[in-house]
């Protein structure tokens, strides 16, 4: 346990700074991303860990990064949450966090991920509720939201959950403008993408 937390602290202490340095040197990221309108982002109503109803339409006029995760995920979910933590730091530094750009993490496993479990998970990643909320609903009410985002889930033999592992970037008008693969998510690129959307002319 001690070792695990120490390792976590080590990764944590390195990651945000290195990501910000990377932002200054574009490298493999694209400084002028093509962010065509892909589709209308399906509307949803879910609840945050305090029980407050959260609708996608609440974020009209702001840019949203929407990730589908589950807290017992042994694969890429912890990594994406760690990368979103780095992104949170970047958005704060640019003055976008909360007021102009928000992060949402939706659990695909609400049965296991109770509000308390999600809240603890959010704390572990240093999520600041001012701009990064973790959302859930009952399994029955979660299902249509997952379906709308083509985010099917499949129970694997060892009890793990298989799912498409995508992250959605939604613009101020509620359009999906980018879809990222969790496996290749680059938080520096996501920051550039969000910055570009925020630079677009107001509707």
């Amino acid at each position, binding site marked *: *346990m001690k070792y*695990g937390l120490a390792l*976590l602290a080590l990764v944590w202490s390195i990651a945000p700074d290195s990501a910000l340095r990377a932002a200054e040197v574009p490298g493999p*990221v694209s400084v002028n991303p093509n962010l065509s309108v892909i589709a209308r982002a399906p509307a949803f109503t879910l609840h945050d860990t305090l029980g407050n109803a959260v609708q996608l339409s609440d974020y009209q006029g702001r840019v949203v990064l929407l990730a589908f995760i589950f807290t017992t995920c042994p694969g890429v979910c912890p990594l994406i*949450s*760690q990368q979103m933590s780095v992104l949170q730091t970047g958005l704060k530094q640019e003055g976008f966090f909360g007021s102009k750009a928000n992060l949402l993490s939706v659990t695909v496993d609400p049965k296991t991920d109770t509000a*308390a479990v999600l809240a603890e998970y959010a704390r572990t990643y240093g999520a600041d509720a001012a701009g990064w909320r973790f959302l859930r609903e009952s399994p029955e009410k979660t299902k249509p939201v997952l379906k709308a985002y*083509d985010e099917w889930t499949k129970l694997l033999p060892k009890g793990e959950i298989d799912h*498409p592992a995508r992250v959605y970037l939604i613009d101020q008008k509620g359009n999906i403008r980018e879809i990222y693969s969790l496996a290749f998510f680059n938080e520096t690129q996501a920051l550039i993408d969000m910055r570009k959307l925020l630079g677009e002319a107001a509707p």
Partner: protein
Amino acid sequence: MKSAHGKIGLQIALVLALTAAFPAVQLTAETCLSPYIKGLKAPEKIMYLWTLPAAANSGPDYLAVIDVNLASASYGKILKKIHVGSSGNEAHHMGFSDDRTKIWAASLNSNRLFIFDVSDPMQPKLMKTIDNVAKTTGLSGPHTPYAIPGRILVSMASGPDGTGPGGIAEFTNDGEFVASHKTANHPYETVIKPEFNRMITSSWFPQKTFMSAPDKWDPKEWSNPNTMLVWDLKARTVIQTLSGDPINLAARWMLKPGAKYGYNISTAGNSIWMFRMEDDGKFSYRKAADTGAGCGPADLRQSPDDKYLYLTCFQGSEVQAWDISDPDNIKLHDTIQGVVQPNMMHVTFDGHRLYFTNSAISTIDYSPRYSMQLIQIGPDGRMKLDPNFKIDFAKAPDGPARPHDMLLN
């Protein structure tokens, strides 16, 4: 709560440590597919084969569903055919969606795209036909569907009337048009290396040309069939044009995370070319080997360990294995000869089996002995034709058919 915190913290720490040690590519597709596709990590049970009747307009094109489960009583048999309801499409290449629940099947001639639902891998269903892609996209001659997250990129050979330069058409997984990205050549195949934000597309001919008999091909109708385009993937812009031998069809980027090089074939040059991202970010492009006169390279596949390439000689009726363990000095390693007109290949996730078909396009095929066969690949990369697996499409009960591209589940 304290113990929950500790448990999650430990779990995260271990995963992050493991992820750092074993990069993301583990989570992604098997060899020769888009890296964004959910990978198959077990022996294949079912094959989907995109097929067209041998005689023009003699029936609808179809997806043949074939049992490739060694333990099955119907191993090596066609279980069913899913007809697409139209003929003359010229069934050609296919691609999975990123989540592996859909197959996009492209038709070279009719500009139709077919989407099959394979969410139940054993029960594929035709879920959508996109008609008149040329009108929607301003492009024609759909060749290779290639998955990116939530979307499909389709390389399109030409302008809307089947002539002139083409581009890349972008759709959602469900078939809604997103955008067209025009090029100065005739895109054939796509490879992406996500960690570098780079895409490379190869080139061939406009639709009107390749749907004609070769003796009617008019050089005035095409441009730059010897070019490979390097794209800033995120920007969807071409940042470099590489020039080599003509008709550079299949291209493969090495699979090792961070690998900066790959290879492609040139059909007219009878050659293999190597592209490499140099330290300044620009790509070099050079001939890596000659395949031998009369080969007519048609497809190129790679082993999962980046040690071997497999190449079909469509004209030379040969399958070649190349040892690429020394990337700058690749060597012919093994051959299987006497397999008439071999074209498309598909290497399994473990690199042990290579399925191949032997029809290219109805305008180009020179032998009616259509079949799908299997090559067993040893740990040393050497090949052996499997005598126990052959589907003879020349003698198909409902008429001869041309088998082309394959996918496995």
